[in-house]
């Protein structure tokens, strides 16, 4: 069965329909990206999938004993709450220190266990949350615009890490992203959401779909061009090109 499946999901927030008739499923090992304009219900949909919101219509089916590794957009940690990276990883279940150290090393943050979370950069914090997710043995990583506060090299490195973790652990990855060009290259499947599922399929198929072009064709022409370039590039080296950000800036010039 699918890890998570949504059938005919709809929700109204503040009297306004935000999502309607969303059918969705994600399988083990898949990387699925949800794209969509602001206010299209992407984050709301993720919140429904993790159980933070109850849909008004339809239903969500999770595989039994599914372990979700959620990496939220940001944490709401008050400055009065002292917490280290290691303690964060041990929430809500405490982990042995060697396991925490190993998980931090795996995400490129060796020796960070004792560092206060407040002292970390946005990119480091996202990596700590990834370490928490993989140490918990996540079957699926759910990332909500994980690279929003990162610059381009950090963004590229982050997606590379996500793909490595998928390869090593076999977990599925579901993410919402605005980094269309990078994400397109790294995803098995793209879902274009705008209150409902406009179109979905392989990155190539979605980018060619009229529904997708209607949403992104003009507003993000730059990103679109970047994507096409990155995609062209991928033909000469499918593995390396998949998450390689290097062609992107070059594409911007062309």
């Amino acid at each position, binding site marked *: 069965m699918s890890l998570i499946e949504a059938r005919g999901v709809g929700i109204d927030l503040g009297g306004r329909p935000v999502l309607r008739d969303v059918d969705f499923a994600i399988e083990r090992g898949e990387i699925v990206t949800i794209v969509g304009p602001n206010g299209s219900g992407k984050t709301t949909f993720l919140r429904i999938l993790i159980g933070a919101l109850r849909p008004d219509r339809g239903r969500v089916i999770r595989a039994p004993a599914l372990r979700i590794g959620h990496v939220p957009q940001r944490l709401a940690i008050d400055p009065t709450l002292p917490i280290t990276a290691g*303690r964060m990883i041990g*929430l*809500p279940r405490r982990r042995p220190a060697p396991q925490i150290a190993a998980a931090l090393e795996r995400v490129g943050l060796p020796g960070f266990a004792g560092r206060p979370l407040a002292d970390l950069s946005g990119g480091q914090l996202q990596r700590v949350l990834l370490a928490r997710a993989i140490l918990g043995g996540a079957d699926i990583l759910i990332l909500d615009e994980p690279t929003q506060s990162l610059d381009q090299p950090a963004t590229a490195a982050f997606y590379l890490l996500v793909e490595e973790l998928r390869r090593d652990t076999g977990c599925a990855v579901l993410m919402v992203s605005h980094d269309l060009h990078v994400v397109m290259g790294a995803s098995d499947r793209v879902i274009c959401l705008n209150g409902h599922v406009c179109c979905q399929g392989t990155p190539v198929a979605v980018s060619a779909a009229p529904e997708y072009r209607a949403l992104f064709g003009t507003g993000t022409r730059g990103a679109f061009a970047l994507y096409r370039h990155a995609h062209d590039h991928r033909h000469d080296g499918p593995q390396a090109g998949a998450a390689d950000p290097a062609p992107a800036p070059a594409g911007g010039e062309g």
Partner: protein
Amino acid sequence: MLADFLLRAGLAGLGVALAAAPLGCFVVWRRMAYFGDATAHAALLGAALALVLDISLTLGVLVMALAMAAAVTGLARRLLAPDSVLGVAAHGALALGLVLLALTGRAGVDVEALLFGDVLAVGWSDLLVIWAGAAAILGLVLWRWSRLLCATVSSEIACAEGIDPARERLALAVAAGVLVAVAIKVVGALLVTAMLVIPAAAARPLARTPEAMALAAALIAAGSVGAGLGASVALDLPPGPAMVTAAAAAFAAGALAGRLWRRG
């Protein structure tokens, strides 16, 4: 016997201090000071209720504090500006409680003791109630510690881990309601929030982990109870305000020490 009432006062203060410190950490981390005020001020409504229904003061206070805690917990979630609504609830409850106490005939109730506590008058049976309540609060908070902490750090991560943030909010509300009922005789309705917030805030610069902060807050709160009680006896001060003043002094010292520590 002189030492006897002092011993009871000290034990009562200690019980409240130990229960309030870890709970107070969550009040600080989640910015719930107004929530604490609203819950505490409902104690006056509870006292009026106890008079009207002719039930025990503690029971009346417990019922009203729990009701208020649950109400504002639910209310604050649904409103856009929870801070101002909680402010209205906190001060509205205080004023309404005073008005109702006046209407129901204040002869049976010492309003000043309700507002500022009267720890030197605590009897052995009061002490039993205080320690039972304190143990319940401490047990609840420690039992749910990890879940509470996770829900505080990120309600979304909590949901993904199968923790219901609403249930954790309710657990804190219940703990706060019970605390008000047991602290009313020690520091009074006006200073309950001080016992929650000040030791936790004082402990912040000294701690690097949530657990260390809760422990430090408990030590500071216990020390403040002892110092306040001592000062109250030596200088003939009201004990509740003296305890809170001691805690505030600890906060100032902690802030200063924390600053020097970081510089050094």
